[in-house]
Structures are given as C-alpha cells and as structure tokens.
C-alpha cells in the first residue's frame, strides 16, 4: 500500500505531519533520531531532567509546542524513529531501522524535511580531537548535557555562533573567546533587513550584549587561522580585524560558517536543482507551495535552503496544505496565503543574515595546501588544487581523480569547501563546476543487514 511519507521529524516534518493528520490523512513519519524535534529542538535522552528553559532558552515555548504536537499525534500517524532513509527509487523509499533492519516503503507522496548540517571551512588542525562543529558542540550540550571543554573557543560565523556562546556560558562553560569572521560593518549594514523579524533580531542583539556584559570577548572581522596540539587541540591561532595574529591556549574549539542543506534524498528522487547564490549551493527547486519538480515530492525546511526553524515550521505546514490541495482535498486558501506571506518575510530576514554574516570569500585563496579538506579520505587542499591543475574543473571529475568526497560522509562535510577550492583554482564561478552527484547509501549501510518484508 502506498503511504504519504514525511522524512524528518524536525520543525518542518512535525508541522507537515500535524497538518496532514488534521485533514484526515495518516502519514508515515520517518526520523533518524530516537525522539522528535530535529536538531534545533532536539530532546534530551530519557532520564535527563533539565527544564525546557535550560534546554531551549527563548525558544522553549516553540520547542515544547512542537514536541507536544508530535506527542498529540500519537495513534494518528505511523511514527518510525531511528529510521534512516538510505536510498530512494520512486515510488519507493529504502529505509534502515536501528542500523540493521532494511525495509522498502512505497510512497504516494513524500515530504522531504531533511534539515541541514554545519558548513565547514577547514583550517589546519581542524581534525584534532577536541575540535567540533558549532552544531555538534550544541548537540553535546543540548542532548548529553556535556560541554566540549572547559577552555573553549568558538569561531566562524552565523547566528548559531552567538547563540551557542550564550548557551555554553549559561550552562556554566563560559567561552574564552568568540571569533566572528563577519566584519562589524556588515552587521550594521544588515540591520534594516534584519528588522523584518524584530524579535529574532532582538534576540541576536541580546546574546551579543549578554556576552559583553559577562566578559566574553567577542571579536568581529576575526579569523581562525589554525588549531594546534599534540594529541588534541591545545591552542588556536587567530587574526584580528587589524591583521594582528594572536595565540590562545584552549582545550576545545567549535567552528562553522552557517549551515548547508541536506539534499541527497531530493537528488536521488530526481528533483531538479537550481543554483542558490545566497546559499552558495545547488538546491532542489520548490515552487511557492513547496512542490519539487517531481510530481508527488514536496520540500520543506532547511533541506531545501537555509531559512531557520521558524521558517521550517511554516514551510512544513504549507507543503502539507499544497499536498492536500493536489489530492483534491479542501484546504483553507487564506491560510496558504498567510503562510506564504510569512515565508516571504522570513526570506527577507534571511537575506539580511546573509549580509550580516557574509561568506568569507578569501577562504579558498588563503587555505594552505596542507590543510586536510576531506577528512574521510585525507585529501588536502593541495591535492584538490593539483587535480584542478591537471585540467579537471568538474567537481565529480576532481572527486574521481583525488578522492575528495568519496568517503563515509559522501561529501556532506567537505563538499562545500571542495567546491570553493575548485572554483578558486580553476578561475570558474562556483556555479560553473557542476554539482556532487548523490549516491546511495545516504549514510553507511552495514553488511549482514536483515530484510523486513
């Protein structure tokens, strides 16, 4: 039997599920995590007792509402946690439950709400133990109630940088230093568009002010140069806005430059992609209702372009309404328009964020040859440049030549940085070097897998 399937139980997936259930459908909700909420509203493991305020701060109400929405749907949907979608061959999704049970699932429609991961721009020493992505550092804190270290440096750019600094400080692990690669002037210039979401903007200001008041040094226009250490990270080297180089001893580092979309499932399903200059990435194309180019496939949330959790909730509901409408069911047209307008406003805010936290354009030119870009296959920036100098400019050919993106993560971690390096070295625009093709399995698949009918 064919089902309406939602992939991902984050803000987009849960809102889509709720909307479908409210209109009498019984969707199947697949999620890799053990509990719903996605990365942003990740729930702590059973038996942990921190309050929602401790876990989610200003977002506690949203988090609780989302968790509550999923709990209320119990019995109205087929919710399958710990389930990875590792492959898609329309009209089938191939799933892996608890890392060992393979099952096929036929879908009539699918809402892809696969979210995002950190965008990593490697520096020397980034593969040392004790170095985390910003997102991973947040998961350690939110999920396991662990700080990644006692003497902590946070670097990179994007709203998560300040949020994380604040969360760590509130949890009692005050960062030694926060390095934001975005210049202060960019953040000032972006203010008008950021005011499209005054409360979100105010929160950003609040985190900054709070960090200042509590003596956490925040440097804008400052770049992480390298992490160093023997067995694990012991110090960072960084450059301030005036070009002066500093060294600071630490025992943990978290870094990242905003987020990147998880698009492999849309790719395996054959969805058309377009170049997004704002995301510096190829994204599955969606119309203003959330339809992908392939009939029956809908896209919602950060997996189709980074807009954040609030937008994901809106897009999840909107995609579900579109799906229902396409089925010939009656949906409230005013609600659709309202959601579309809210999304448009959030997109304006997002453009402001782009200006406030601009991509560090000089990264590719400055990355040292010996920096490991692909940690799965240990491919350095120099090896990528060598492949380009041999005449390759297509990212899949560079991959075939030097193995970048061929390992466990399939380029999910290194693909963005590799693309920047290839474009820079070949003198081509970032959208002129092709796009890494998705290949199953989306995440590794074990030998000895059991088949479930």
């Amino acid at each position, binding site marked *: 039997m064919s089902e309406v399937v939602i992939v991902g139980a984050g803000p987009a997936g849960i809102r889509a599920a709720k909307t479908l259930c409210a209109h009498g459908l019984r969707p199947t909700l697949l999620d890799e995590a053990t509990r719903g909420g996605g990365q942003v509203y990740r729930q702590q493991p059973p038996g942990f007792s921190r309050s929602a305020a401790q876990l989610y701060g200003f977002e506690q109400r949203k988090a609780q509402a989302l968790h509550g929405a999923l709990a209320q749907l119990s019995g109205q949907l087929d919710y399958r946690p710990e389930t990875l979608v590792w*492959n898609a*061959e329309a009209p*089938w999704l*191939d799933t892996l439950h608890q890392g060992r049970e*393979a099952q*096929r699932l036929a879908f009539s429609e699918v809402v892809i709400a696969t979210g995002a991961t950190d965008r990593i721009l490697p520096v020397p020493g980034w593969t040392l133990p004790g170095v985390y992505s910003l997102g991973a550092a947040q998961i350690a804190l939110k999920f396991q109630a662990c700080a990644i270290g006692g003497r902590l440096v946070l670097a990179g750019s994007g709203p998560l940088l300040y949020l994380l600094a604040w969360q760590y400080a509130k949890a009692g692990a005050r960062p030694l230093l926060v390095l934001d690669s975005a210049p202060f002037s960019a953040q000032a210039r972006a203010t008008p568009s950021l005011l499209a979401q005054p409360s979100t903007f105010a929160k950003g200001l609040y985190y900054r002010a709070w960090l200042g008041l509590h003596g956490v040094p925040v440097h804008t226009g400052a770049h992480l140069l390298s992490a160093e250490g023997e067995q694990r990270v012991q110090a960072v080297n960084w450059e301030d806005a005036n070009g002066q180089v500093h060294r600071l001893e630490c025992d943990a580092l978290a870094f990242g430059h905003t987020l990147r979309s998880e698009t492999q499932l849309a790719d395996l399903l*054959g969805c058309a992609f377009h170049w997004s200059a704002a995301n510096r990435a190829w994204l599955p194309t969606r119309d203003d209702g959330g339809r992908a180019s392939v009939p029956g496939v809908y896209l919602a949330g950060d997996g189709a372009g980074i807009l954040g959790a609030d937008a994901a909730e809106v897009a999840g509901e909107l995609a579900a309404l579109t799906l229902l409408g396409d089925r010939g069911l009656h949906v409230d047209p005013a609600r659709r328009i309202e959601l579309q307008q809210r999304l448009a406003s959030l997109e304006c805010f997002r453009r402001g964020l782009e200006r406030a936290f601009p991509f560090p354009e000089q990264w590719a030119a400055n990355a040292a040859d010996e920096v490991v870009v692909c940690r799965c296959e240990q491919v350095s920036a120099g090896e990528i440049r060598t492949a380009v100098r*041999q005449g390759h400019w*297509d990212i899949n*050919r560079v991959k*075939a*030549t030097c193995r970048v993106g*061929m*390992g*466990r993560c*399939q380029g999910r971690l290194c693909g963005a940085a590799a693309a920047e390096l290839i474009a820079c070295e070949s003198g081509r625009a970032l959208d002129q070097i092709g796009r890494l093709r998705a*290949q*199953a*399995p989306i995440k*590794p*698949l*074990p*030998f*000895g*897998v059991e*088949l479930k009918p």
Partner: protein
Amino acid sequence: MSTQHVDAIIMGGGIVGASAALWLARAGQRVVLLERDFCGSRSSGVNYGGVRRQGRTLVQLPLSCRAHQIWGQLPALLGIDGEYVRSGHLKLARSEADFAALQRWAQLSEPFDMGLQLLDREQLRARFAWVGDIAVGASYCPGDGHANPRLVSPAFAQAARHHGAQVHEQCAVTHVEPSGVGFTVHSADGQRFSAPWLLNCAGAWAAALAAQVGEPVPLVAGHPAMLVTEPLPLFMTASTGVEGGGIYARQVARGNCVLGGGQGFALGESTARAGQLAVLDILRNACELYPALAGAQAIRTWSGTEGYLPDREPVLGPSGTTPGLLHGFGFAGAGFQIGPAAGEALAECILLGEPRHSLKAFSIERFRTSTRSNAPCA
C-alpha cells in the same frame, strides 16, 4: 568552419578508444579522439577494476595475455601506476561441479602458461584463510590483479594527448557521413573532422553507428552493481570471483573493499545506479564468502552502462560493410583488462594492415543476417 583532416578519428574516450589513440599517436599518426563526456568517465572509469585473464573465453586469451604484458608496463606507458597490483586472482568454487569447471578451464588454458594453481579445500584454507567455508576449492592465477579504473582509464587519454593526439572532451558527435577520403564527423560544438579511418569505440552507445552503416548489432546495456566499504584492516590478499557468477571482491591498499554483483538499473541514457536490490543482496550474502566483512559498512554504491552482445564477446575489428571503419565495443563488463590490447589491435589494423592477433572471433559479421543488405555508408 573548415574541416580538419587527420589520419584517424576515434569516437569514444573509454579505455579502448583512448588506448587506440595512444598507440596511433605514438606511431606518429594524426589522431582526433572525441568524447561526449569526460574520457574514462563511463564504464571504463567506474567498473570493478579487475585485471584478470582467468575465467575468460579461450578466444579472448591471446589478446588478454598481450594486455597482461601492456599492464606490466603501465607506469612507463602512462606515467602513473594506477594502483595496479598483481595480487593474484582467486576464483572460488562453491560446489564440486564448480570446482570441476575450474579444473576444465585450467586444462584448456594451459597453452597460455598463466601458472594457474588449483587449490582443494585444505590448500585453500591454508593459503587464503580469509575465504569463507562455503568455498570447496579455488583456482588461483598469480599474475592477475586489480587496478583503479578511475585513474587508469583517463590516464590513457592523457597519455595519448602527450603523444600529440587531439583529445576533445564534452564533444558529442552529431553525425557521421562518408566523404571522399573516408569519413566526415560533425560534433555538437560545430567542429568538423575528416579522416580515412574511423574507430567506433563508443561502448554501450556504439550500435547507432553500426546500424547507420548497415550492420546492426543486438547490443544491449547492462549495469553491474558495485559498492565500496569503509577502509578495513588488510585481509583480502587476492582479487576474487566466484565460478558461475555471484559476488566479486578486491581490497585496495588503503583498506577499502570493492564488491560487485548483480545488476543495477539505468537512470537515463547514460547514467545508472546500483539499485537497492543488488546492494542488499551483496550486503546479505558477501559474508559467507568473506567473513571478515561482518560488521563492516558500505559507504558508497554505483553502477555504469556496459555494452553486451548475446554471445558476450566483443565486436572488435573492421566493419563488414564500410572500408576504413573499425569497431571496438561490447566487452560485456570485462573490457578493462583487455581494453589496452583491443586498442592496440585496432591501431595495428591501421598501422600494419592487420592485427598481430586474429580478431576473427570478434568480427561484426557474426551478426549478419541473410535478409540484411550490404548497404554502403549512408
């Protein structure tokens, strides 16, 4: 745009076309190699990477043994080692009947002097302890091995370029027409080439030109499914296959195991995927052949588009209808090892008038039907 006149035009930058280009360029011929995608990016570059003589039909062995010599000179020829190792190839038998088949093949192939070693169950256990109990015996060919097709196949085109061949990538041929000297070939980017010799090395897409010159072939596309594991401790000391077909596997120096088996599916005219069916079959059945894989993870799967003829032999040699046209395609998933010698044989057709090893068994004429007319190049 004016027509460029050369000695030979090669359609297809796979290992057969690129090695033909290399041999011709080395002999001083003016060669144009046209590849609609990137050289070595299709079957030649995404195959399993087996470099074996063992298990081939007897008619292929002369060429395959010549290829074995060429592979031995790879670094001198290409400037890279292509991760080529003569690890030996172990063909496993799962039944006494299969073992008898291996014995028969060993006997028949004796004139080719490959040093085959037949191993019974105890000998197999003693020498290759990592092979699962399901194997009752094996045939070991010590000089066979494996290589990295992603590196080797494009390197043939690169070497041809170094020797003066014009290599045009992302250059699809739109049409071929007869001309005074032989052939005129038009490409999608508006280029025009003419030559007395035309080599049809277009792999799974070669049937169109054969049909155009009045010698259609029943070429079908196949899509062998492949996957690779994360790096594992080294244990697989030989490349392996199974008598009667099934899963084949090799382990590369960095530890990844490459496994193939079963068929994937075409995604479009030129792309393919391994497909969940074949992938799950490999993951569920490989451990009985290679127990050390238990608990390992597959990190990537892929497939390619290979040309197969009904008798699983290639079409290699002169056209039956059109003087100056040479075919080299349809290697049925086993063209990687023999490819460099196939390219050399095509070059010999031009340079020597005929190849050193007879290509009779691979003639396109075997598909001639009584109803077909001897149409000229049209």
